[in-house]
């Protein structure tokens, strides 16, 4: 376990709990999760669908107010309802660029909206700068999402997150809807932007290889709980000890009949 003092952390999460439903249908989607993210670090959260990793991101960025626990971001304790200034510091990039962009808003409208909300004046200059930053260029300014490829759309979604110049970027499966060759471009872009802008990131993914490529530390989740936190170097040395992490690691390498036969035994009816 890597223990990092929470007082220096950019993001500190203590005993975060999120539940949905009530009575017999009560589901603890996130069940007492704690972790810290250092300034400038990219922290990975991996686990299978339904393990609560995206729910954590939604609670952190204020999309779900029904959580309990202690969350501080940039030294400030979070309350369920967020202020406008919070969103100047924390932004999110969503999984599906086909769903996260308004189909009838041009690139310009999409990028102007956050500036209007926050009363920022130098829109022209900022839009040009951010479009260059994400590798689209000013020529894309008056296009509609349907005129963009999947990779270009995700670049636009990243531009929208960056236009307010946030310190924290929350990435929810930013490449899982993209082809592998496009995924490489977006991952390279994220690495580049993170270094240039000094961003602190949390990357949620089901793909262990993507997390291992982007992050230095990661947390492995299952059924709403953090099973273990480990440095990515442990994955590289093939030394994780938790059986679930080992299972994820083996599965990320492809199909293996021998491993699969033990997996078949585990199926519940």
């Amino acid at each position, binding site marked *: 376990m890597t223990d990092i003092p929470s007082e220096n952390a950019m993001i500190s999460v203590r005993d975060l709990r999120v539940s949905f439903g009530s009575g017999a249908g009560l589901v603890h989607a996130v069940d007492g999760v704690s972790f810290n993210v250092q300034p400038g670090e990219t922290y990975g959260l991996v686990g*299978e*669908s339904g393990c609560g990793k995206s729910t954590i991101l939604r609670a952190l960025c204020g999309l779900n107010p029904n959580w309990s626990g202690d969350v501080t971001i940039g030294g400030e304790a979070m309350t369920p309802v967020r202020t406008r200034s919070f969103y100047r510091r924390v932004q999110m990039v969503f999984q599906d660029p086909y769903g996260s962009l308004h189909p009838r808003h041009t690139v310009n409208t999409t990028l102007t909206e956050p500036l209007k909300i926050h009363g920022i004046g130098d829109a022209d200059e900022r839009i040009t700068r951010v479009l260059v930053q994400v590798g689209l260029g000013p020529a894309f300014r008056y296009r509609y999402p349907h005129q963009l490829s*999947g990779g270009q759309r995700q670049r636009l979604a990243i531009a929208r997150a960056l236009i307010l110049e946030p310190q924290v970027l929350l990435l929810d499966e930013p490449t899982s809807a993209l*082809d*592998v*060759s496009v*995924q*490489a*471009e977006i*991952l*390279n872009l994220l*690495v580049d932007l993170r270094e240039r802008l000094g961003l602190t990131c949390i990357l949620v993914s*089901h793909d*262990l*290889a*993507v997390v*291992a*490529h*982007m*992050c*230095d530390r990661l947390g492995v989740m299952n059924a709403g709980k953090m099973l273990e936190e480990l440095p*990515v170097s442990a*994955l*590289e040395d093939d030394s994780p000890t938790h059986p679930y992490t080992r*299972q*994820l*690691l083996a*599965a*990320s*390498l*492809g*199909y*293996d*009949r021998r*491993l*699969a*036969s033990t*997996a*078949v035994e*585990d*199926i*519940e*009816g």
Partner: protein
Amino acid sequence: MNQTPQLLVEDLHVRFRTPQRMVHAVRGVSFSVGREKVGIVGESGSGKSQTGRAILKLTPPNGTVSAKRLQFQELDIAGASEREMLKVRGSRISMIMQDPKYALDPVMRVGAQIAEAIPEKPSLSAAEKRDKVMAMLEAVHIRNPARVHDLYPHEVSGGMGQRIMIAMMLMADPDLLIADEPTSALDVTVRMQVLAILDDLVTRRGLGLIFISHDLNLVATFCDRVLIMYAGRIVEECAAADLQNAKHPYTRGLLASLPRIGSRHQKLAVLNRDPAWLND
């Protein structure tokens, strides 16, 4: 692995008429499938799914299919009528779709859906049908078939739903299975279980499998042979075990663009598409 081919495809073309222009989605694809696992990999829009659909004549109405030869065992698919295809689809060639959520009927119990796939035999009683369904659920490693039999699709997990689809497809004992991204909606550990079931079926029942996927690692480790498609053509064909030594620059580019454990702090190679690949 490649004894008598079950399926022979020669110079297959699929074209779509759109209001703007003609889209040539599959441009002269030729391959054969025996009792083996053949992977078709490619990125979105490469024509891999349309190739699979053309074999079953499931091309959407605005598309036209032409081929020099499209032969399944003794049947000439290219010249077969819709009536003849009805006898082939689901009974001799089956297709497993990507997402069980959309492919299963939401208002029909699992058992009844699987029973629907039993080939028409009026002599079978309800009890006999139920026994067949139970046996098939067990064959796809569902531990409590009696319970699952009476569930609705929304009450089962994704992995279970995919196994139910496989059970349904196998009811008629097909000779060829076309699986279009059968595991991309599944979690990695569940994916292994579903693949193991498919793997055993190919080995034990001796059926042929066309496995359509965008996941190079998976295809390299799961299939026997791999066809790599780019812009409607097969640009390379190789034994799955040799995929890492692929020669075509497109395949090499795809392999190099994959992040892997150990590639931290390195820049990923970005694929530079060469217009010449469209023609060779």
